[in-house]
């Protein structure tokens, strides 16, 4: 039975597949898939940027994270939430407890309160235990929460950096080949964005912030700093993870070597 029906079923599936294949090829010959502006002009994130946390030994540079936090606070926070981060987490950037307290207290958006007894909504200052207050954005576009943005995009920090520094005028070649693909009003051309046209205006520029540590606030520097900061918000455990990983690998190398020797010893008379 199996040897009769098996081959028949096999030939049935193969025939169906080759039929699909034939129809597909005929379609391509008649009318090949059209090229699109996105296919031709979308760019992969710049990979030549180096971050201190790259590689298996990489660690965060706290001064850079603090600068990145400043960029987030003064620029990104106008539209983007960072809901996974609590003020207390900022102590990982090297802030002292008093500084964390001050940052929370001085945060412009206050924590929302709700009185269970009276039903009154109110506000109070943030404490280190509070998460960074949500940002509500009424304009066009949906600014995503940035807590996990570097894990949620191919290329991670490189993508964020490329996007922030990648704004340009629409190339003439694009408009020539795809006259219908002109960037709509209110959107901005950015070849690193998935569909080339992003609702976010260029957020950073030279001297958009003034760094406390005297680092010149160029566009490039700001973009790098905030990309590093957002990598930290996405992977606050990264340093501990790598620091744990090395002893684990070291132990396993030793244990595996011993296991190999013991295997060889036990098998010595059986080969």
């Amino acid at each position, binding site marked *: 039975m199996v040897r009769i029906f098996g081959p028949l079923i096999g030939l049935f599936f193969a025939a*169906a597949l080759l039929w699909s294949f034939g129809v*597909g090829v005929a379609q*391509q010959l008649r009318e090949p*898939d059209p090229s699109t502006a996105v296919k031709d002009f979308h760019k992969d994130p710049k990979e030549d940027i180096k971050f201190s946390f790259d590689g298996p030994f990489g660690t965060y540079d706290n001064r850079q994270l603090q600068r990145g936090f400043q960029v987030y606070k003064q620029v990104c926070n106008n539209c983007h939430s960072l809901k996974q981060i609590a003020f207390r*987490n900022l102590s990982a950037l090297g802030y002292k407890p008093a500084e964390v307290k001050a940052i929370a207290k001085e945060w412009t958006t206050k924590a929302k309160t709700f009185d269970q007894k009276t039903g009154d909504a109110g506000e109070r200052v943030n404490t280190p235990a509070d998460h960074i207050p949500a940002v509500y954005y009424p304009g066009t576009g949906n600014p995503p929460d940035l807590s996990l943005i570097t894990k949620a995009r191919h290329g991670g920090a490189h993508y964020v950096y490329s996007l922030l520094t990648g704004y340009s005028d629409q190339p003439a070649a694009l408009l020539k080949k795809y006259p219908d693909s002109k960037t709509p009003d209110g959107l901005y051309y950015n070849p690193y964005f998935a569909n080339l046209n992003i609702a976010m205006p260029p957020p950073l520029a030279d001297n958009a912030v003034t760094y406390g540590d005297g680092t010149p606030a160029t566009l490039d520097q700001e973009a790098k700093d905030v990309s590093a900061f957002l990598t930290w918000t996405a992977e606050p455990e990264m340093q501990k993870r790598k620091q744990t*990983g090395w002893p*684990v690998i070291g132990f396993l190398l030793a244990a*595996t070597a011993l*296991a190999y020797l013991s*295997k060889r010893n036990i098998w010595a008379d059986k080969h």
Partner: protein
Amino acid sequence: MSFPWANQYKPKNPLMVYLDQKLPLPRFVYNAIGGGYPVPRNLNYAWNFGVLAGFCLVLQIVTGVILAMHYAANSMIAFDSVEHIMRDVNWGWMLRYAHANGASAFFVVVYIHIFRGFFYSSYKAPREMIWLLGVVIFLLMMATAFMGYVLPWGQMSFWGAKVITGLFSAIPLVGEPLQQWLLGGFAPDNAALNRFFSLHFLLPFVIAAVIILHIWALHIPGSSNPTGVEIKTESDTVPFHPYYTAKDGFGLGVFLLIYCTFVFFLPNQLGHPDNYIPANAMSTPAHIVPEWYFWPFYAILRSFTVDFLFIPAKLMGVLAMFSAILVWFFLPWLDTSPVRSGHYRPLFRKFWYLLVIDTLILGYCGGSPAETKYVLISQIAASYYFLHFLVILPVVSSIEKPLPLPFSITEAVLGTDAVTA
């Protein structure tokens, strides 16, 4: 069954003697995976992967049970509860990365285990039942992994659940109501998430039970071996312990080195970035792709682009995708060659290598965007896949002239066997 020369369990410690009289569990373990189980002496490293698969299941259950203590299966907070595990639970990031990469490791190990079975025809008599149970385990694993991937409730979780449950809607007449019944709604939502969590917790224990049957069935004929020649005398075997516990110990070390490299240094390499975006029913991802271990089957599903003999393309795709695994159930009867091992089957061996390459191509296409070129390649690769199992294997087994087999396992290892001399 066991071989007459198998070592006998002889407890010396009075406590163990007492235990052996009341509940002979130590005796059971001794005979199953201890000194009392005679195993062919010539097993190569391809035979390590059964033990490794068992290790992976234990790893997944241990990490999974702890994760379940912190995870909240509610569509409003599931995503944030996973981030809570990553950030606020002590060593939560390690547990979650160990569990997510543990799923991948489990599939790597099981795929090698299965393709080892293909090469050495481990499915042939008298081991058909072991094979059939193995395919059941694989199907259960796929269901468990799929439902586990839905739990973080990210974009790929949500849209993956939508696509996979959508497959049921291809069934004529009852498809749509069936899909809604399975999901508990018109689209994946809280009801679906809750039942997926419940089943994701249950199924690993079902897998554990089927594994016990798998090993039980294995102990009837005993392990196969790279020559495919059955055990004849005691000199063909060694006791499982210490010989194969030592060899498996080394294999486990190598496995853990690779696995821990992923957990600690490349934890998100095998995942998709979109699953770090919270589920959003209003926004479809540009490319919906399942986890890498489903890619070959996903490629087969997508290969059917036009209706065939009045059967809708979608239904054909679903039938083919399930058939791609169900066909494994019939292998013991499709491959009729009396010789087991691919080492002695020159023609069969060539087709085995082709199947490996074919599956890798299918996997590559399944993970790529649904562009025409990938679909065309997967159509060719998928037709080879079906022809391989259903046409080529039966034909090869009847026309092939196998190479001469060694007289015994001992002869294969030592060059001579005292019995023949």
